[in-house]
């Protein structure tokens, strides 16, 4: 038996709803609130049941409009690389600083997506981020932590 990806997603949502419902029941409410008409866990419990019902209906009922996706044409390599780059960007943004991490993220992303116009790659990374930072930091007074720029003495 072949099960469609939409049904697999619905099945996962069913499991997730079950977990959500279990966690909702574990919410600690105040003793005087336990038998109240409404407490902190009432709404989440309803949501848990709603999730179970809708996902179960989707899994059990026949699909009227199945989503046809050709998995062979999807670009996994570039998408996964971009996601990894974003994670690394998130990892370095506080430690290295906004300027360097953002510029390097942009350069690497352009290259990963196949761009080879080096002048544009440069202009739309380091100078672009510098101007953007000036707008935020200099004009809008939004403080951006940047250990790298502090280290080289550009930022106070």
């Amino acid at each position: 038996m072949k099960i469609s990806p939409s049904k697999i997603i619905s099945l996962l949502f069913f499991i997730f709803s079950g977990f959500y419902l279990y966690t909702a029941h574990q919410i600690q409410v105040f003793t005087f609130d336990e038998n109240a008409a409404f407490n902190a866990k009432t709404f989440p419990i309803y949501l848990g049941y709603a999730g179970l019902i809708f996902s179960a209906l989707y899994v059990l009922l026949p699909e009227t409009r199945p989503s046809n996706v050709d998995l062979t044409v999807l670009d996994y390599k570039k998408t996964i690389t971009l996601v990894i780059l974003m994670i690394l960007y998130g990892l370095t943004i506080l430690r290295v600083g906004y300027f360097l991490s953002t510029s390097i993220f942009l350069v690497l992303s352009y290259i990963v997506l196949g761009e080879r116009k080096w002048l544009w790659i440069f202009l739309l990374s380091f100078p672009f981020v510098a101007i953007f930072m000036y707008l935020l930091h200099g004009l809008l007074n939004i403080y951006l932590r940047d250990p790298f720029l502090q280290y080289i003495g550009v930022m106070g």
Partner: protein
Amino acid sequence: MIEGILIGLETAFSLKNLMMVMIGCFAGTIIGMLPGLGPMTAIALMIPITYGFEPSTGLILMAGVYYGAVFGGSTSSILINAPGIPGTVATSFDGYPMAQQGKAGKALAIAAYSSFAGGTIAAIFLLIAAPSLSKVSLAFRSPDYFGLMILGLTAVSAFSAKGHFLKAMMMVVLGLMLASVGQDTLSDIPRFTFQNMNLSDGISFVLVVMATFAMSEALTIIFKANDPTRVAKQISLSQLGSIKLNKVETKKMVTTIPRSSVLGFIIGVLPGAGSTIASFLAYGMERNFVDDEEKQKFGKGSVNGLAAPETANNAACSGSFVPLLTLGIPGSGTTAVMLGALLGFGIQPGPRLYQTNPEIFWSVIMSMYIGMVILLILNLPLIPYIARVLATPRTFLIPLILFFSVTGIYLMSFNNFDIYMMIGIAVVATILRLYDFPMPPLILAFVLGGLMEENLRRSLLISDGSWNFLWDRPLTIAILVLIIVIVAWQMIKTLKKQGK
């Protein structure tokens, strides 16, 4: 009302706010023009910037972005047959054939004049309808609000899901589940935080919008190996022909615009219907109104066929502000994003907004009109230049969208955890989008989650834990009947398809 209008005019016509409308229209046009990126993405990208502004200024900027994005969507529909937003799909039916006949300038002018006229008529309706509806909505109680929210979520799921009603309902539940993370508003009891301090304040609205729209749309373009700029590279974007209309064309528009405006506004007011349905209905209606000779031209470059959906989608945009401003309940994904932004400013839209924050209420309405004027006098002549954005390579476009998304959330929290959570939600949203799980119901549910729980809490406490509150008042019953009708209609549609 006159006093309110004057306050609105004063606020909207301040130099700063005029600048914001111009910037908003311009930025919105550029983002809306890019296929795959709609008004929700455009507004989402603006939210972090607006948090530094006064509420009225921030809202004026977002309203400008909204209209600009709708206008930009029409431009890409006409020039490259790639609608930037679903609301402009019907525009491409006759706009693109006109462009192929060498009348791209004319098609863009018809779209701009129709949008302007539709928006103007709808703004007048809004001006009249909103204060009256505000007074009526004061009669609404918690059970009615709870019912209205369920109605809005059901309607959005029914209309926006394109036959995937159950998938949309799952997204509604997921949105509500995400909204339930964090401390309970009344008792401060932590829920679903798993002892993680980063989750105690809940998940940020901007984070969810950025992840499910801006970031996930960018990832989807890469994942599906789409190049939205491919067609744009094959045509000349600088030579679009004359934008002048002759008498016959003007006459055709004069008859089309009023009826499409009325239809668009009414559809826009209905929860969930929005500009897409308005534009398709207006196109269909116009086809029935015109003579046989004009009917033959539909789909081949008809002036009426282009003017009708363009008028209706702009009128619907104004109409969608009615439930937001009067009831505090958004009727569409885009107005849900705006509601989230309003809540971020500490403003609770609803019937009392008209009295408590008249400057916001009226300045938003006024700025809509100013936005229309700016789109007409500024964007139309500049279209040959702005249209070059369509040829921006995706190799530059996608990283810049990702950069703006990450920066947006970083500026709000200065926290790595939020960045990781945004990436995680974006990846899940990309997979869900691939299999037609719609995102607007999720956003609407996420925004309404807190309000819904609050109204259910009040209703249940008043009725001592009984669900009788659902049929205690005629108004609640009427709302309940509407919900049942929508669900039954969806079930009948599904059963009919299974029968085939």
